[in-house]
């Protein structure tokens, strides 16, 4: 092998660089997202549906709302407990969850999802 020493040293350095992130982060768990509720949301106790359902399926609920409001003009949502809500991300959801950075963004950033809601919908002003 010509220049065997150089190649082997190069390989070792390359392998070291490649594995550095694993070595560097070994034993450390990434910080789990910890979405915070605003006092208003805490006080309300329930969202439009069960917490478990909202945690799992809020995106499909919002998608359904968007479709029904924009396409069908049906702007009121009757929750499974009979309560009636105005279907609006900006007006209804963000009224309670007015802490977007500590509520929405926590998990969205952790999971690296980037919903384009906020291109148009206005996020509430926060005192960070």
């Amino acid at each position: 092998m010509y220049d065997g020493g150089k190649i082997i040293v190069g390989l070792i350095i390359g392998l070291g660089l490649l594995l550095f992130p694993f070595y560097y982060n070994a034993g450390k768990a990434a910080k789990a997202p910890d979405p915070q509720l605003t006092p208003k949301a805490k006080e309300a106790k329930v969202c439009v549906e069960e917490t478990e359902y909202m945690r799992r399926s809020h995106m499909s609920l919002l998608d359904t709302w968007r479709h029904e409001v924009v396409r069908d003009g049906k702007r009121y949502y009757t929750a499974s407990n009979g309560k009636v809500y105005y279907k609006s991300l900006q007006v209804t959801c963000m009224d309670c969850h007015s802490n977007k950075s500590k509520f929405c963004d926590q998990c969205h950033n952790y999971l690296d999802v980037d919903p384009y809601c906020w291109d148009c919908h206005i996020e509430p002003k926060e005192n960070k």
Partner: protein
Amino acid sequence: MMGMDRRKFLKIAGLSAMMGLGGKAAFELLAPGELEASLKELPLTEGKKWGMVVDMTKMNEAIMDRCIEACHTLHNVPNLGNPKEEIKWIWKETYEHTFPGQHHEYVSEEYHGRNFLLLCNHCTNPPCCRVCPTKATWKRDDGVVMMDQHRCIGCRFCMAACPYGVRSFNWGDPRKAPAALNPGFPTNMDYPTRSKGVVEKCNFCAERIAKGQLPACVEAANSVKPHTLVFGDLDDPTSEPRKSLREHYTIRRKPELGSGPNVYYII
């Protein structure tokens, strides 16, 4: 003795059942969010063919400016300061440009150069909806020609198809509109803005008629002079606009094209 025969027992039982049911239904409907529940089914939200009559005998520049201001503030329509990128939902245009087929060189002084209030005509046969490749714009059952900003891909076919120029394209992000021209933008925190690359236009205040309110321009104009703008269901012969249309001679913009505009002008 019990003092109650079978007939009386059934009567009372039946009545209590009815009361019980009524009470429960009323409770379920009203208790959880009385406001929302009471707004749910207002007669105004049940139109079949929304339309508008603009009474130009009552209209003046100040009222038009008020209408434009009311609409554009409500819907976060930015002023970009550049006519080539202008975004407008409702605006002013001269007689000559509003009714090109009607104009001639001897037109009365009253109408020569006079401004008219223009907005989307919410056509009966809207050419914009025919050409939209994604159905981002379509005609609702109640007559509103609606935009779904989530679906718009910004191809601008609708802008080419609309004979009235009611559609505007967002060449840039509306939130980057010059701050000096747009104090406090976005002006309405309860309504979205648009994003770069979508087409927008008047939606006949769909979000307001859903709550039983009149469109913002109608409210603004009529607070100055009643019946300047008349809004209602053209399918209902007893409605305000139908009454107005019966009583006055009206014209529409470019009716010869067959798009069936639903905004009428009393001249």
